[in-house]
């Protein structure tokens, strides 16, 4: 009797909340007039907020230490990092505030982008000591950069800029040359990542300027851009916020990480690792998340089976960013062609997860994918960070460098028997 009663109460509650959701959905759809011209310069001010429940109030991206971690703090942090046997972590460089994507120059300069600080850094080696120099200032969210044919490429939110002969001109890079600018100017999910393929074209992600909604034209996609000609093509649709990817050395295909929508719950939906098998594939956003979860508002009759499923669900709110296939020779042989992913960690979750380096092993066609934690220890308590991994790059000797935009540092992870 009681259970019947309970069940009908629960059923009523579900029906009521479904009604509330669909009503809110109609309002939400109306509110984001993403087809308007104005939307292109000024996305909705509450773009990062959601339809948060009472229990979710107060969840917000945490503020890191503005001056990064001091050397003493970093020394304490790396003692807490756990790695498989034989691996070791050390601090490669500190004082790299808000460090994001990294790229090597031909002569051994490590270029590093940053988040809202607007800096681009060059790290060089002088008598065994790392020197961090700010070579560009005042850019808008220069998270993504690449190095090719002697030139440094940097994304300044809506412009891809080329600085020629960069390593010889670290003291004065000049104005650079804009080689591609068909991009929206807003900051909201406008920060990018650059990954080059064998033809020298860059994969460039375009995120929607909100948590969830019908994307305005020309975003929620990944393009392939030729920096020589400024030509571009769309290679993937239905992508939310992707800030990392790499070309598979086995097949030449592009794999990328993707951050799923927020404000559903602590455990749903999962962030993803995807692979583009054929041009123009649709990965589901905003209709379907994690391959099997229709959006409560925006599915609008679509089925998840219409879209390309992820290679792997990485977990909810783990925030996968930069990734690299391991092509070096230093790590044990079983790591060859594995994928390492820098997970930035949660903010839209009561107990943070992620903030680690993940190892993924998958067949060239994306089958048989499995994952395990490789480097952990940057989370303290439920909602505390010692650091937040943001990108990975391999060094010539086969060791791995990790950029941490919370601590403002670069770590080196190496292996010896």
């Amino acid at each position, binding site marked *: 009797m009681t259970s019947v009663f309970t069940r009908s109460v629960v059923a009523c509650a579900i029906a009521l909340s479904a009604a509330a959701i669909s009503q809110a959905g109609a309002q939400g759809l109306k509110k984001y007039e993403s087809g308007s011209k104005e939307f292109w310069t*000024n*996305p*909705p*001010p*509450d*773009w*990062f*907020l959601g339809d948060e429940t009472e229990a979710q109030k*107060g*969840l*917000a*991206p*945490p*503020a*890191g*230490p*503005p*001056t*990064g971690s*001091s050397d003493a*703090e970093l020394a304490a942090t790396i003692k807490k990092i756990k790695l498989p046997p034989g691996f070791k972590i050390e601090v490669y460089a500190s*004082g790299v*505030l*808000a460090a994001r994507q990294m790229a090597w120059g031909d002569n051994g300069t490590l270029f590093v982008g940053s*988040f*809202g*600080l*607007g*800096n681009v850094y060059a790290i060089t080696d002088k008598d065994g000591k790392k020197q961090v120099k*700010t070579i560009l*200032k*005042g850019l808008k*969210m220069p998270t993504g950069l690449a190095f090719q044919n002697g030139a440094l490429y940097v994304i300044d939110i809506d412009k891809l800029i080329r600085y020629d002969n960069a390593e010889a001109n670290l003291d004065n890079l000049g104005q650079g040359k804009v080689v591609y600018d068909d991009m929206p100017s*807003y*900051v*909201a*999910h406008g920060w990018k990542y650059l990954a080059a393929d064998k033809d020298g074209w860059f994969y460039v992600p375009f*995120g929607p300027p909100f*948590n969830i909604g019908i994307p305005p034209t020309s975003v929620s996609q990944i393009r392939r851009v030729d920096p020589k000609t400024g030509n571009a093509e769309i290679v993937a649709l239905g992508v*939310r*916020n992707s*800030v990392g990817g790499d070309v598979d050395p086995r097949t030449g295909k592009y794999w990328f990480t993707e*951050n*799923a929508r*927020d404000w559903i719950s602590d455990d749903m939906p999962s*962030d993803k690792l995807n692979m583009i098998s054929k041009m123009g594939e649709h990965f589901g956003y905003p209709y379907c998340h994690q391959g099997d979860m229709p959006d409560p508002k925006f599915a609008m009759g679509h089925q998840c089976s219409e879209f390309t499923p992820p290679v792997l669900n990485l977990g909810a*709110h783990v*925030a996968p*960013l930069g990734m690299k296939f391991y092509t070096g020779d230093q790590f044990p042989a079983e790591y060859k062609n594995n994928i390492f992913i820098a997970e*930035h960690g*949660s*903010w*839209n979750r009561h107990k943070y997860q992620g903030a680690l380096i993940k190892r993924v092993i998958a067949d060239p066609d994306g089958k048989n994918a499995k994952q395990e934690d490789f480097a952990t220890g940057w989370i*303290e*308590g439920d*909602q*505390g*960070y*010692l650091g937040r991994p943001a990108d990975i790059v391999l060094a010539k000797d086969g060791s791995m460098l990790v950029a941490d935009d919370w601590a403002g540092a670069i770590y080196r992870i190496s292996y010896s028997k």
Partner: protein
Amino acid sequence: MSRLLAALSFCFGLLASPLFAGDIEAGKAKAGVCTICHGENGISKMEYTPSLAGQPDLYIQWQLVFFRAGTRENANMRSVVEDLSNEDIRNLGAYFASLPPMKNLKPDEKPELSRKGAEAAAGRRCASCHTDNFAGTKATARLAGQREEYLIKALNEFKSGQRSGGAMAAMADVAYQLSEEEIYALAHYLAHLN
């Protein structure tokens, strides 16, 4: 998430994080030059210059880092912050955060304007980041009791895009939508909150 998040984050977070506090006394020693404009004990008596007393530690630190990096532009601040070390910035943050917050003791002569300001603040969801009593938190500024004409200036700078506020540019996006009337009402309301 997107990470979405974050840069300055849109709302610099409300969450606790293990941070190492600066040295208040060392910050006080370094703050001499600040008092010329920002006033004794961080209470500004100068037009268009904000009070710093009781601002959250991280807010002070972020603004100094932005000034130093050139992300936030102000001719007077540029020369002052150029040579600040990371340690100086931490100490200054700790010092100003330790001072009793600014208070506006003048009676509110325009309660109707304050009412409109309160309405605008609710409609624009200001408290989502600045907290319910507008005392600010973490990297989000204290607004309660701030100088009225400075608040107008700051909102106009966000509105025009001259100031971006933080990575996520939340303030620029919010302020873009504000009418002139709303800006005056918000500034009046917040300046008279204690």
